[in-house]
């Protein structure tokens, strides 16, 4: 089994990047693209760590956070929310029918957070000190929300790792260690939800310090709530979206339980996401009302804001509802992609597009191609590792030796 993976490398990449069918004819150009991304990414990595941030990024003294924070960190964390939403639904709220979705979601979350941490190593000026956990070991800046985010991400990465361990342990056949890991499920799930609630919301709260820099339509005392609620919608949508991609790439690895439980899960998640987006839309409106920022809606930024909340919150809310009412899986998958786009848009708006809106255009930040290329490199690496694990280990199917051990 371990020998069959290299030929599939481009396939999952293709599925992820281009929504292509499992089509072997398209195989080689995509392998080339993957190869180019990896080579370019590696060269840029060397450039970043030998020449400094200035050599690869367009960051300035007024725009100290760019693509790697706005996309890699903000979006990466939000889109990895499928881990805590799914494990909470299954283990805490009694939705046992979602059990088969937990493993792919946990794996995605674990790899997502790992990617976020790697991206941060690129972004900070002193990655050596981040590795040595200076904020926690050397001197604690406890008044910083970034301290809280960092601590939560560090702990949550550990939690996700422990939640993920049964997968390789089953693969390796280490029964005793695996059973210990499974016993921790309840505590880990609760801790995971607590940590996720905290850092998902605190990522938004990072911007509370800069009311004079972030556009009033996006700046709100409720911004932490916005980030938390939208992360739930992002997590649910990612599970749906990823499931449909995985169906194309890993169908042969999918166990009967997964295949049976998947369609009702998609319907259930669509219903949940619709409801969450309904509430999210409301709190966004409350945000405008609380700041009395209605007059900004008539400005270009206001139109852009309306595009975000009407096109990427209200519309997916309605489409998810239609999809779950009519049991239209195709519509639901499309809406999941729409919602994810909306969350990415929201995070980029807050961290880049509507940030420093008071500055003249020529002083604004536009990411360099190298920053974008390294972000793509990160995503590509994540997909490759996911494929490596999912083709070998019991992720979408159950290990025959451990079938009845489900809690």
């Amino acid at each position: 089994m371990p020998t069959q993976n290299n030929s599939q490398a481009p396939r999952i990449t293709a599925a992820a990047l281009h929504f292509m069918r499992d089509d072997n004819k398209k195989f080689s150009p995509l392998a080339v693209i993957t190869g180019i991304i990896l080579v370019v990414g590696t060269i840029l990595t060397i450039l970043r760590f030998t020449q400094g941030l200035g050599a690869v990024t367009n960051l300035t003294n007024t725009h100290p956070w760019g693509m790697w924070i706005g996309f890699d960190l903000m979006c990466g964390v939000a889109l990895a929310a499928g881990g805590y939403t799914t494990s909470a639904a299954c283990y805490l709220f009694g939705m046992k029918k979602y059990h088969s979705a937990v493993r792919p979601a946990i794996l995605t979350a674990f790899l997502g957070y790992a990617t976020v941490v790697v991206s941060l190593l690129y972004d900070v000026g002193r990655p050596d000190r981040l590795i040595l956990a200076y904020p926690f070991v050397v001197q604690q800046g406890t008044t910083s929300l970034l301290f809280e985010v960092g601590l939560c991400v560090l702990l949550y990465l550990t939690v996700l790792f422990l939640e993920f361990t049964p997968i390789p342990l089953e693969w390796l056949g280490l029964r005793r260690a695996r059973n210990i890991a499974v016993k921790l499920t309840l505590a880990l799930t609760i801790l995971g939800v607590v940590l996720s609630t905290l850092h998902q919301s605190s990522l938004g709260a990072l911007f509370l310090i800069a009311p004079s820099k972030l556009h009033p339509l996006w700046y709100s005392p409720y911004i932490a709530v916005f980030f938390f609620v939208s992360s739930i919608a992002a997590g649910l949508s990612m599970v749906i979206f990823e499931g449909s991609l995985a169906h194309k790439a890993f169908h042969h690895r999918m166990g009967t339980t997964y295949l049976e439980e998947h369609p009702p899960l998609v319907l259930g998640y669509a219903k949940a996401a619709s409801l969450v987006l309904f509430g999210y839309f409301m709190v966004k409106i409350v945000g405008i009302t609380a700041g009395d920022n209605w007059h900004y809606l008539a400005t270009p930024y206001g139109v852009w804001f309306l595009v975000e909340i009407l096109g990427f919150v209200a519309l997916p809310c309605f489409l998810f509802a239609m999809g779950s009412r009519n049991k239209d899986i195709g519509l639901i998958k499309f809406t999941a992609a729409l919602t994810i786009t909306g969350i990415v848009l929201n995070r980029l708006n807050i961290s880049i597009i509507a940030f420093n809106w008071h500055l003249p255009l020529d002083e604004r930040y536009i990411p360099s191609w190298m920053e974008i290329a390294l972000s793509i490199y990160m995503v590509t690496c994540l997909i490759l590792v996911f494929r490596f694990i999912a083709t070998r280990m019991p992720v979408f199917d159950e290990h025959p030796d451990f079938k009845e051990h489900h809690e």
Partner: protein
Amino acid sequence: MSISRRKFLGWMGTAGLATSLLGKSASAASTKEFTGHPNSYGVLHDITRCVGCRSCEEGCNTVNELPKPAKAYSDKSVLNKKRRFSTTEFTVVNKMVQKGSPIFWKTQCNHCLEPACASVCFVNAFEKLPSGAVVYDASVCVGCRYCMMACPFEVPTYEYDDPYTPEIVKCTLCAPRIEKGLLPGCVESCPTESLIFGKRDDLLKIARARIEKYPDRYVDHIYGEHEMGGTSWLYLSGVPFKDLGLREDLGNTPAPKLTSGALHVVPMVVSLWPVFLAGMYGMAKRRDKIAAEEKLQAVKTAVELAENKAAETLSQAMEKASKEKENILKRVARIKEKAAKTEEGS
């Protein structure tokens, strides 16, 4: 031993006295209003007195041992372009022409009373010293640049081009010189007393007196008195500050207050979220148990029902069978009778 004991008793006494005598002010103090380090220093920059000589820039450059700029400080042509501080310039002078006459002003770190950079630094690398200076400790800095995001005055700069040991760079108010009783480099080299160093409280008095004395010369605003909770640098100007790029829309909320609400929610989530989630888990488990019991009961009832039905069917069948048996017997008897009659007849 005895001293520390006496000290301890002293504290206890003070505390007791404070609570008994100052009940009201104690409760007022519990809202925690902080007014900053007493007798801290600051600088008053009277923009109307600035002649744009750039001596302050040169003084800063010299005392901080910064690399010399390409153009000499006597070259005033650099003033024609808007500048901002960088990793090699802690302070810059800018120029604006209004109604035909030039206005010069100097900018640098304002040394907030409640610095946003200190509030957001996750390694606590920034410190507001009792002297008034906000200083940065590069030996712990991870380079996350959150301080730059947070600073409402866009002060901290970063050594983006240093690949291995980049640091945040900003004005230090010449904190080491203040310790030695010297003036900050810029203040020392200012020939027009446009910069005055002193206790912040005294500087505020001077500034107010000037505004009162020359109401036509100054706008009625001391920039830095309240902005972002107040800054150690104070400015007087003859034109609205926003025309000079000194933002007047920052508000007066001290930076730590902006995030304190979010920070205070954290322990609430940590305390109550596990309670809620464990409760949800418990309820889900209980629901499953009840469902299982009900299922068992339902099966039992179904079995009973089936059994009853079977018994009924059986008894009905038995009855039917016995009736049929009777009928058959009757018929047999009739046949027998008939046969006997025929026999008799024949």
